[in-house]
């Protein structure tokens, strides 16, 4: 179900980063443009014809059991049902990390069982909550590391788009900023080399690749080096999770989008003493959770991004 929003258009646009109501975000030729869709308008819009599409979900935190959401498995199942009900079947799902809450085998098992109901390929990157096993990420790599490079990063091509899954949650330092590291940056440079500047690029990682709110560790300390490698491309879309809320930023030809969680919300930057699970009234929880559909309209034109909540 598309988001409800009770604000007028101007008010909604003003705070769309928070409301995220039926936001269609298009990006092409380096000039992105946002359009806010009403629920009816969104429903009436053709679902994309033959266009290539995929879905992003994030921060399922299977194993979390506190007041902010005592049953994140249930809300992940609802997200899966919502994806299955999409009018056009997406090619695959990206999970941008914090699959589990505490990196436990049983939590990974439960998450994979639920996501298995999608009947779609799922491409993962880990969050910091997925690399807390004794091997500091070994458990994640055993499950999801086949065919990846280095410590789990990888790329693939689909629908004319080059997808790059980066890992910025290893060797975190105090303060909490994400970190890519020299080895991964060298791999990225080599990986991008063979692609023409007109290839649309989608980069996905757990933590934001822009300095979103460093006071809470919401950024990546060496992201500027990654962005320098991406600078020659005409269309770069960066998808991440970690902060459990929708925020967007456009910098040159790069559009950054953080996604909602399927488990629980976190406070807006600076509105609480610290980040962490935020408890909202039970009847409001699902309006803070959601999935994101991304559609390639045509190879030469914009990626369209639509966030919908679980309400």
């Amino acid at each position, binding site marked *: 179900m598309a988001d409800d929003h009770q604000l007028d258009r101007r008010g909604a646009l003003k705070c769309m980063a928070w409301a995220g109501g039926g936001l269609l975000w298009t990006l092409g030729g380096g000039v992105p443009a946002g359009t806010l869709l009403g629920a009816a308008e969104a429903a009436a819009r053709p679902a994309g014809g033959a266009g290539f599409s995929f879905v992003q979900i994030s921060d399922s935190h299977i194993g979390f059991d*506190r*007041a902010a959401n005592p049953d994140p498995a249930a809300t992940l199942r609802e997200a899966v049902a919502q994806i299955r009900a999409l009018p056009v079947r997406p090619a695959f799902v990206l999970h941008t990390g914090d699959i589990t*809450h*505490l990196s436990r085998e049983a939590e990974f098992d439960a998450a994979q069982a639920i996501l298995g109901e999608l009947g779609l390929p799922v491409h993962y990157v880990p969050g*910091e*909550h997925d690399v*807390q096993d004794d091997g500091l990420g070994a458990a994640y790599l055993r499950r999801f590391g086949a065919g990846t490079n280095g410590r789990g990063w990888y790329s693939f091509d689909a629908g004319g788009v080059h997808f790059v899954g980066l890992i910025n949650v290893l060797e*975190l*330092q*105090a*303060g*909490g*900023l994400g970190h890519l590291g020299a080895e991964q940056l060298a791999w990225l440079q080599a990986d991008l080399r063979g692609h023409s500047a007109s290839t649309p690029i989608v980069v996905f990682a757990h933590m934001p690749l822009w300095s979103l709110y460093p*006071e*809470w*560790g919401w950024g990546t300390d060496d992201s500027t080096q990654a962005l320098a490698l991406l600078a020659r491309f005409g269309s770069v879309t960066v998808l991440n999770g970690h902060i459990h809320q929708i925020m967007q930023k456009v910098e040159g030809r790069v559009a950054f989008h953080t996604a909602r969680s399927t488990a629980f919300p976190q406070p807006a930057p600076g509105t609480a*003493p*610290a*980040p*962490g*699970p935020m408890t909202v009234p039970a009847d409001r929880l699902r309006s803070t959770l959601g999935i994101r559909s991304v559609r390639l309209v045509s190879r030469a034109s914009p990626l369209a991004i639509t966030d919908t909540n679980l309400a």
Partner: protein
Amino acid sequence: MTRKSSFALLAAALTLAAAAPAAAPPNAAAVHIQNFRFGPQTLTVPAGTTVTFVNDDEEPHNVTAVDHSYRSPILNPGARFTHQYAAPGDYPYFCALHPHMTGHIVVTGR
């Protein structure tokens, strides 16, 4: 405090009392984790002190040295972790699950 953790505390106290040698017991101090914060954020102790980190929060946390020289397991609510600081110096640490949570143990000469 729950009854269970009261018992745990009592048991820990009894164990300590039973194990304490006749000579001066080693120094002990504690850091408590509450609301995604280590408290006190900076703890100053004499060399040789054993610091107990107690998770009084509702969320799991951990204690990881910034230089990665030691690392606690994940501490569920109520769980604790001890580490002895032998030499003088500044020992920054953080929570690997929530890395914006940071603290310092400052160890002075005896």
